[in-house]
């Protein structure tokens, strides 16, 4: 009896003190894609295609352990839907349409989950044969696009996992030497708030998690009710009011 008590006592003590300081929240990311709103920070190399926003997917993978997954060494992949769609036209085994790097298991002292350096996504289209007006074939080199994600940060708590993130994205079109740097503010799930009727104005009501069939929102947006959102008229998607790193 006494030896058993002696063994249990430190466990109980640990349990008692475990309550003294909050253990860090796990770095869980959303399963549904995020909608990322872009703001141009700088551009170089001439007239570039500017993106205003798109869906971005994030997946976190455990490490491979000796017998099963090792959740203490996760990795992360970040992919824009542009790259994802482009990747359908090439062999996915040879190109990498997603950014890949290491990711922490638990949030740091500030409650942030930040990946390590992310290797950029890089897709090279094969060159295509095109015919000119005279019927002569000539080769058009395929586009070579590289996306580099930097400084990705997610604020997580035990009750609110990583459904928002802030980051910096650099898109380089290496065929025409164009490079654009964006500031990214992203929210999951991605909700389309364009109204069914083209003349009507897009509505903030469609971003509400409360279902309301009268406004065309029968099942609610799925966005966490603690997060403030508005319908962005340029992208017609629900975006964050404020910074993705605002505590709630």
């Amino acid at each position: 009896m006494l030896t058993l008590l002696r063994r249990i006592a430190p466990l109980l003590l640990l349990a008692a003190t475990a309550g003294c300081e909050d253990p860090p929240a796990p770095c869980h990311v959303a399963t549904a894609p995020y909608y990322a709103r872009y703001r141009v920070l700088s551009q170089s190399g001439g007239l570039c295609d500017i993106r205003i926003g798109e869906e971005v997917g994030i997946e976190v993978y455990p490490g491979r352990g000796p017998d099963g997954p090792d959740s203490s060494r996760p990795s992360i992949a970040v992919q824009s839907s542009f790259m994802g769609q482009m990747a359908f036209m090439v062999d996915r085994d040879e190109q990498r349409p997603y950014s890949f790097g290491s990711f922490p298991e638990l949030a740091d002292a500030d409650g942030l989950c930040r990946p390590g350096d992310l290797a950029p996504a890089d897709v090279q289209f094969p060159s295509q044969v095109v015919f000119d007006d005279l019927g002569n074939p000539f080769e058009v080199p395929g586009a070579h696009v590289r996306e580099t994600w930097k400084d990705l940060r997610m604020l997580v708590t035990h009750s609110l996992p990583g459904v928002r993130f802030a980051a910096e994205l650099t898109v380089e079109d290496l065929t025409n030497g164009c490079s654009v740097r964006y500031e990214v503010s992203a929210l999951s799930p991605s909700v389309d708030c364009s109204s069914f009727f083209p003349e009507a104005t897009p509505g903030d009501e469609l971003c509400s998690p409360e279902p309301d069939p009268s406004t065309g929102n029968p099942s609610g947006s799925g966005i966490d009710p603690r997060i403030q959102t508005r319908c962005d008229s340029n992208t017609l998607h629900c975006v964050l009011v404020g910074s993705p790193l605002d505590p709630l």
Partner: protein
Amino acid sequence: MVFPFRIPGVAFLVGVFLATPVVLAEEPLPSGLGAGSGARFGESIDPAGVRLLPLMAPELRGGPARSFENLALLLPGTQEDLYGVSFVGASSPENTFFVDGIRVGNPVLGVLQMPLSMEFVERADVTVAGADVAFGRGMGGVYDVTTKSGGDRFHASTWGSLAPGALEGERPLRVFENTVIHTDPRLDGVRDLGGSVGGPIVKDRLFFFAGGSLARRRYRLDRSLNAMTWTPSDDFGDVFGAKPTLDPETGAQVKTRLAGTERTEFAQGDVGQWIGKLTYRHSKAQEVTLSVFGTYAGSGGGATYAFDPRSDAIGVDNLNGELTAMGRRETALTNAVVLRGTSLLGRDARLDTALGWVRSQTETRAADGSGVDDIGTPGTLAHVPRVLWNRPLDSVPPHPIDDFEDLPTSAYPVCSPPGAPILFALNCAAGPYSMGGPGLLSRFTADRIEGRAVVSLRARGLGEHKIRAGIDFEVATVSRVQGYSGAALVRESLGGSFVRNERFGYLAGPDAPVTYDSTTTRASSYGAGAFLADTWRIVDGFVIEASVRYDAQVFGAGTLALPFMIAPRAAVTWDPTKKGRARIFATYGMRYQSVPLDVSVRALAKETRLSSFHQTSGCRVNAPEDLYGGCGRESASVIVNPAQPSTLYSLQGGRNAVDPDTSAPASHQIVAGAEVLVPLGVRLGAVFVHDELIRALEDTSLSTGGFLIGNPGAGAAVFATEAERVYNGLSITVMRPFAGGFVGIASYTFSSLYGNYSGFFRQDTGQLDPNNTTDFDEPELDTNRTGLLPGDHTHSVKLYAGKEFVLPAGVILEAGAGYTGRSGTPYSMLGSHALFGDGEVFILPRGSAGRTPWVNRIDARLGVSAQLRKDLRLGASVEIYNLAGSQTETAVDQNYTYNDVQAIPDGTPDDVPEDLVENPRYGKPVAWQAPRQVRFGLRVDY
């Protein structure tokens, strides 16, 4: 007679503890746990004292094995639920089951899977409400069972019974929608045989008791195919130009039996029990016992179907599949070893200790006996994936039954009448159909080591004090191994061109799956507690009790810690007669829940599954035997959003979090009442119970797809709805313990159960998952979920009486009868949710749509016994359950509509929109009380 007296000087064999010094001073009660608190609501039941009463209905959970659990049904404030007996509004898995001083409930789920026979029980002390602090944590009722010990005289008994299916009464016809397959269960037979022997080894010093029993239960499953009838229709909503022809009375589709399609299958199960006990009485003041007891329940396997090991119900609802897929072998073994000691130290002190180990092993295997370890072994059913075919009736014609089974030629004109435009596939649709292997296989192995010590002393100081102090500890570990047969679960999807594969595994990178045949999860829980209690008799007849209990429970690796649980308890008892003939009492107690391991195994395990869609044309789904591992990558289709890095595989499960501020679930309980002993040995009583949940421990889903374990409504789970469960009940009781050949137990209870939390299992769906049910999962579905809970039965009447008639020549005639009547259960009006599916929206407040009718049951028992020789008695009996053959419904279809609807907060039936398509089966019965059954018994006692 063979009913040994245990309490010298007290003629009661059914009696409640009266907190008067007379009882306390004279006899140390065998359990040593419940001694000392007179202010509780419960009874001490001796199975021998209630043997005249019909208590072993064959269809009751544990009935074939004569489980002691059902003794509690005699008491007010209890009722049977799907997994056992529910006490004052709590669910049955929340009960605490002590046998010989340690707990024998399943460490993972809390249910009692050891249906120890009443024949081995000397006494069952059942507390309905107001339990003493010595019983530890627990929010339900408390059973404190002491097994027989043998005595100075040698005794032996054998018994047997038979409940023939031929004498079963009528069962109402069941309804199966959208399928030709129809299965009707009927009792084929319940038989049991057992024996026990007990006596002295060394006179006055060493005694032994041993016993064993075997019970077999068999049900017929009469299966037939019945063609559906349709009427041509031009309505827009009727997809194939036809609407079902309905029977106006049942709301079900009219069907025609296809001749030659009838066949009978069987569900069969056995329960074996054993007990061996040695009692060493060192002196009048010291006693040590060593007992080993357990049960083994095995069902199914070979050509028979299994019973659900947790609810004891038949494991298949409808035989819509092949035997290889629907058949299972289910086993549940529970074995306990307990060492217990009682020591009286001087006149004033007493020490009770118990140390025990309980092992539970439950296993689900395929019909050929192969289990989760054989998934990689070719030639076994465990190596074959389960394929579920299902084409819901919306745009693609359903599977006709001859896609899966051969039909007799006479069936074709019925399924496809000449000249009728209705499709063959509509008339003779198979509905969901399973082929291949059994699907999920598992093995749970749980061990619990428990110990407790209670010391009680007497002291003087402004009256008499009885001070008790105790400590206890518990270490529980569980290992769960599970896997899909054939390493994959295959489901027809998206109208039939695709199948969905589910496999245990994880993604190591984008579209880089790592899969395995089976996963192993280990969880453990450590608990310790201590209590201090004082029973203070200020003056004669006036007693105050005050006690406090401290508990701590930690789950393995500190994942969930409940380190600080303080539970106070206070009670006042006044005996105006000062002679133990009456008492008026009031108790307040706070009770913490004893959290079982399920939350750790299910929610905190990091087991994930991979889901992928495959083209049917590229995968050999028609030959499941060759489909080990599911469909290959070549046939995988892109199903995910192009933004996601993985396009072929998606991950399910595994992203769970625990709120570090989680507090242990607890409830307040107030009991107040009065009891008086009137002439003829009758006790009249009135008791009021108020049980209120303070907080629950449950999981809520996070928007990322994982779950958060916490207290809904508080801490990190503050966005979830707070849990509520309030029980109020007033019981009037008339008890006449067995004496002079007569026993009578009568009670009437008026109660209400209100809230949004049923307990460890969801009453609406039967999902047994303590702290992990789908309750509170989605806050947006919680509108109207607070109301009258399914366990609410406003009125409950229980009348039991038994009498012996002693005839000349040593013949005794026994007559006993019981009547149970209670109000029906409230039901709700459910609709479909656009995202979450059918039955998820409560259109009106829960329980406000109506109530099922009053259920009556009359049971009777007649027996005759004769003295063959000096000590040998032979008895025969016949018990008839549900004598009147009542067929009252106990549950109805609650789906008002399958359209997507909104909940109407505080709505009334007038507020319900008129344009909804009403389900013709709404409000129609789906379950009925058990039919009339007869059980013959024979016994020999020495």
